[in-house]
């Protein structure tokens, strides 16, 4: 009979033996990769990116650090303080962060300025996605139109705003968008109307140029466009209470077309929650708005070379394909560098442009204005 001490010794030895293969023959450098994105992203980093990167670069070990709910802001503040104190910021890479934060960071030289010498694959990044040279866009999501191909014949699928308006009016009750404050799908549809009313020029709206007068001048014509649509919408002007609610109505066959986030519908199709008859299309005169997630690297990162290697790795073809297939996101690199098969599969949703609309005052004005001017306009009998 085995006594307690023997048992402990044996199990300790066993545990050590099983742990052995994990620790490498040489000590790998540990990279601290921070993220504050949702669980689907941090899972993707841990389960797909980490093993692939470690296989390609055995000299590094990836440590995924989850800093949700503003945690990353504090880490960035700490990094800025470390820069001034010439200390280790204890962060090598942030998966998604606004390089304009913390204030004065760029001027102080906190973030690496990306170029294709530091990160060779940076040359492939979609030019439309680059908002700042201090961050590296690697995945995106954009609102597009999802429609039921069983009910909308291929030749009547709208490809421009005018065609969409004509389609909505010709098929009353078959289109719905969600309330702009309840999800980006509906919000970016409203944004598209705003762009339409302003010469289709997204550049007119920047984070700093909002004034009350400018807001009234730019937004009022958009409300007219949306009010013109209202009587032809589902139930003559009903608005779904969220992205999911709108997608459900499309999946159930209640409506035939909705604006929706690309990653939501692609993931839904992949999981079989959304029927296969649902197809996607992007407007070609000016696409519906979207956004990119861009990564930053502190200039003083203890393992800056490793961080840059990681950044470069994210832009490689396997990882970008994985962004599409596993995340339902859009690639950060130009579509032209991806495999032809993949490009053909998503041909209909490849945008000619990726317009954006600023957060802050412009978004507040959008929400308030829509509720005051568009939502009450219900002609329910």
């Amino acid at each position, binding site marked *: 009979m085995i006594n307690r001490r023997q048992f402990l010794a044996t199990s300790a030895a066993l545990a050590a033996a099983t742990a052995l293969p994990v620790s490498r023959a040489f000590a790998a450098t540990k990279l601290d990769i921070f993220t504050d994105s949702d669980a689907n992203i941090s899972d993707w980093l841990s389960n797909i990116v980490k093993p692939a990167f470690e296989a390609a670069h055995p000299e590094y070990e990836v440590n995924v650090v989850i800093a949700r709910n503003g945690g990353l802001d504090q880490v960035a503040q700490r990094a800025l303080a470390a820069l001034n104190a010439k200390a280790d910021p204890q962060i090598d890479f942030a998966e998604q962060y606004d390089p304009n934060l913390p204030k004065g960071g760029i001027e102080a030289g906190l973030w690496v300025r990306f170029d294709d010498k530091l990160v060779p694959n940076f040359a492939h990044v979609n030019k439309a996605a680059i908002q700042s040279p201090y961050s590296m866009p690697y995945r995106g999501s954009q609102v597009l139109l999802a429609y039921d191909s069983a009910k909308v014949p291929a030749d009547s699928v709208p490809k421009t705003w005018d065609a969409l308006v004509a389609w909505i009016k010709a098929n009353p009750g078959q289109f719905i968008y969600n*309330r702009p*404050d309840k999800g980006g799908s509906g919000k970016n549809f409203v944004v598209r109307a705003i762009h339409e009313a302003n010469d289709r020029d997204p550049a007119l709206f920047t984070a700093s140029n909002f004034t009350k007068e400018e807001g009234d001048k730019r937004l009022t014509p958009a409300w007219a466009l949306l009010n013109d649509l209202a009587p032809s919408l*589902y*139930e003559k002007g*009903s*608005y*779904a*209470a969220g992205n999911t*609610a709108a997608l*459900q*109505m499309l999946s*159930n*066959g*209640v409506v035939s077309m909705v604006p929706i986030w690309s990653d939501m519908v692609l993931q839904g199709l992949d999981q079989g929650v959304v029927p296969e008859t649902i197809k996607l299309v992007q407007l070609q005169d000016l696409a519906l708005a979207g956004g990119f997630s861009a990564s930053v690297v502190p200039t003083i990162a203890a393992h800056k070379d490793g961080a840059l290697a990681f950044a470069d790795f994210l832009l490689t073809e396997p990882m970008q394909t994985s962004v599409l297939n596993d995340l339902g996101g859009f690639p950060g690199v130009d579509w032209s560098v991806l495999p032809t098969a993949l490009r053909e599969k998503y041909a209909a949703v490849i945008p000619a442009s990726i317009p954006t609309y600023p957060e802050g005052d412009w978004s*507040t004005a959008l*929400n*308030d204005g829509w*509720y*005051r001017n568009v*939502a*009450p306009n*219900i002609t*329910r009998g």
Partner: protein
Amino acid sequence: MTVERTEARRFPVGLLLVAAPVLLVAVFVLLPAIAAIVSTLRPDAAGWSFSAYARFFGDRLSTGNLLFTLVSTLVTSSALLLLCLPIALYLRFSSGRLPTFVQSVAVFPLFVPGIIVGYALIRFMGPNGTIQTVLHAIGINGFRSPYLTPVGTVIGLVWEGIPLTLLILLSGLAQVPDAAIEAARDVGAGGLRILTGIILPLIRNSLTVAFSLSFLGVFGAFTMPYLLGPASPEMMGVFMQRTFSELQDPLQAQTQAVMCFLFCAVVGVIYVRSVARSRRKSA
């Protein structure tokens, strides 16, 4: 002498027992509420002013939402009484397995989180949902789903409110003596006469309590109006949340909250008075 001493000794013990909850209410409910009211009356450092309220009442969207909330709440609370009273009467005056079953079904909503009910109701009464499919199968077309209309909100809130209203009415009905009803029946009173002449006056307090509690619960409701209601008009719960987080206007959100508080306070007074009355009666 002895009596006085016992009372004197009991007094601090009783106070100590209620001190903790009272303190909790004071620190976490009363103080923030007072601070909120004060801040709506002092929008900036300049001094006291009613400008936040002037803005609220000068804004048709805000007053419209307040009126809509009031109407929705009155409709919901009345519907709850009308729906629950017959069930309660049935449960009170019958016995056996069926009433037990009915009661457990009626109390069931108590155990289902609101957000789940919301989504279940969308699938049930929503477009192409269960109701429409069944109606269609038996040849009735033209069903218009209440989803995303004010009626949708009321249905959701009624579903959620049934257990509480029913339980209060049941406890009131339990105090109606069988003897009184039998006596009335002996002198030839019909069912309706017994209801209006004996039962309703006897459970008047429970009716008031049930009405005011459901009113208070529904007035500030969020989940059901959010999931099932229309984009416009909005109920105050949804409106406040949107004002606070989307429009980033805490001052107006607080003003809206104070307006809700005023309406609820009126109903609260009715509730407290009716509770006090029943306590006096039983004392």
